[in-house]
């Protein structure tokens, strides 16, 4: 089935889908129309051009809102551009990058971003896999359970941040109240660096764990059931079946989930921005939870060379994302090879 679709129409002699206008076929009725009619030519043209025409809107939109701005951002990062200037000034080489890389706030934002990302992706993927395994059982009210785990997905990140900002409020928040009830001292969720990362990561985990669980569940349901039966006959326990049958079978989907959460996690903006209790939007009094995406946004409003420096920071963020995505890819491949060997 798959090969058939990878090569659409191959083996269907004379398929319209296949016909790319190679050597003209012998006319079915050798009538008077020896030269192709206007109608025929139009249909040929239609056949040739339509596939390109249908994908054109995507590439057109991407060129205008993706590719051009991205390249222009790169170009801009090598110039000066005074605040309120109407056009960019002189070329300054790598100065903007040097400035950003030496900026202590950028360095802090880099560490914050990676910290929040790790706290939000590692537990999330582990819990999502476990929830998916539970959902994969022969449950009563299956579709109800599936819908329920998706509930947080309808809450916008902005709303999520406001709700958790209240749950994690330093003075009157529920979390500190519960901690107090357990005899623990209250945590400065907004002040302490690691605590603020935890609070922000909790928002991300809350919103995305169920969603990722459903994706992993779909992969688990595609595992042939007789694999489990064979494993059970060999005396493998439930846990053993999960480790040696389920996990290896879903690794492609797992990689998909890991890479998409890496891309999303490193771009985090809304949650930390709205978690802020002061109105400066700098990610805490001491920038303790300012992320790179916030840094880009804030730099674009700063005093000196706002656009070029924000542009340089945006490219650094992009490189970081590519770096992490490649790292994921390489690590997963290496793990696979080891498990196959």
């Amino acid at each position, binding site marked *: 089935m798959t090969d058939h679709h990878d090569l659409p129409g191959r083996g269907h002699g004379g398929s319209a*889908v296949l016909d790319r206008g190679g050597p003209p076929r012998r006319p079915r009725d050798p009538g008077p129309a020896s030269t192709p009619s206007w109608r025929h030519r139009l249909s040929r043209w239609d056949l040739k051009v339509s596939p390109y025409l249908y994908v054109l809107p995507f590439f057109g939109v*991407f060129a205008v809102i993706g590719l051009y701005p*991205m390249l222009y951002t790169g170009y801009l990062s090598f110039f000066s551009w005074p605040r309120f200037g109407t056009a960019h000034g002189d070329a300054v080489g790598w100065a903007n990058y040097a400035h950003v890389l030496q900026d202590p706030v950028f360095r802090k934002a880099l560490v914050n971003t990676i910290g929040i990302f790790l706290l939000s992706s590692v537990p999330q993927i582990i819990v999502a896999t476990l929830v998916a395994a539970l959902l994969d059982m022969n449950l009563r009210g299956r*579709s109800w359970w*599936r819908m329920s785990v998706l509930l947080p997905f309808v809450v916008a990140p902005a709303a999520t941040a406001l709700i958790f900002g209240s749950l994690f409020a330093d003075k*009157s928040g529920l979390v500190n109240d519960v901690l107090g009830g357990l005899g623990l001292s209250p945590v400065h969720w907004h002040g302490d660096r690691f605590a603020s990362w935890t609070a922000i990561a909790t928002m991300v985990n809350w919103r995305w764990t169920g969603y990722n669980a459903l994706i992993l569940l*779909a992969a688990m*349901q595609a595992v042939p059931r007789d694999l489990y039966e064979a494993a059970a006959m060999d005396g493998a326990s439930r846990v053993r079946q999960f480790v040696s049958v389920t996990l290896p079978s879903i690794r492609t989907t797992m990689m998909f989930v890991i890479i998409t959460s890496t891309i999303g996690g490193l771009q985090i903006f809304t949650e930390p921005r709205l978690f802020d209790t002061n109105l400066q939007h700098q990610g805490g009094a001491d920038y303790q939870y300012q992320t790179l995406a916030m840094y880009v*946004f804030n730099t674009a409003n700063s005093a000196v060379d706002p656009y070029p420096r924000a542009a340089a920071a*945006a490219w650094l963020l992009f490189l970081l994302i590519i770096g992490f995505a490649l790292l994921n890819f390489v690590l997963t491949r290496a793990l696979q090879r080891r498990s196959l060997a």
Partner: protein
Amino acid sequence: MTRRPRPLVYALLAAFVLGSAFPLYWSFIIGSVTRQRASQNPPPLLPGGHFLDNASQVFDRIDFWSALLNSILISGFSALSVVLFSTLAGYSFAKLRFRGSNAAMVFVVMTMAIPPQLALIPLLKEFSNLGLTGTHFAVALPWLVTAFGVFFMRQYLVDAIPDELIDAARVDGCSMIRTFWTVAVPAARPAMAILGLFTFMQVWTDFMWPLLVLQGSDVQTLQTALDQLKIAPGQTLTDMALLQAGTILATVPLLLLFIATGRHLVTGIMQGAVKG
């Protein structure tokens, strides 16, 4: 075939669902007590009777109804646009043969890794040069067609339309676009509905782009209005009760949509995954 799972499984799942629902309940509690009560210890655990008071304050503070209408218009328009263009492109990638098709599809998928921050500044400049900042159109433009949409429709249509059907339509003398309309669209309808729903939610919950492009404008979406609720002028302390009432009001429309269509959303997410 397989036996029903043990009660422990249900208990664990129930705990997870409870954790998923609780923050919404908490938001409603805080949104329904007075401002003073919201900042007292111990925190309230049951809803109070002030939700309507708080809600009416929200309506005074921000133009909630126009933000709601804007969100509906922008998300609805984007959903239609994404569905139309993604179905066209997805159909072309899945069923038509053209030079460079595979490479182009890989390219589409790779564009998903580009962070939006990379495009913010030039886009904002372009838009302000064209006098488009602060308009509905400016919010919707990045959402005319998405890489995810194209990918999703391609994955669905590969299996959903037999090649023979397309051939038959062509033999009958249908033009390409007519073939698309009479063969592909009916087959794609379930996936189109799911993609529309999904896009609607994505655009609805988007924050950074509308925040930037609607800065200082009368046009606001629900999400940016929430942001304004937080930084209301002349305020020293955030009014938590007001803020949570606003959060609940802004969440209810999607919650209703979710209750009506959640089943399809689940199917869609799971379908996109298996083939992805």
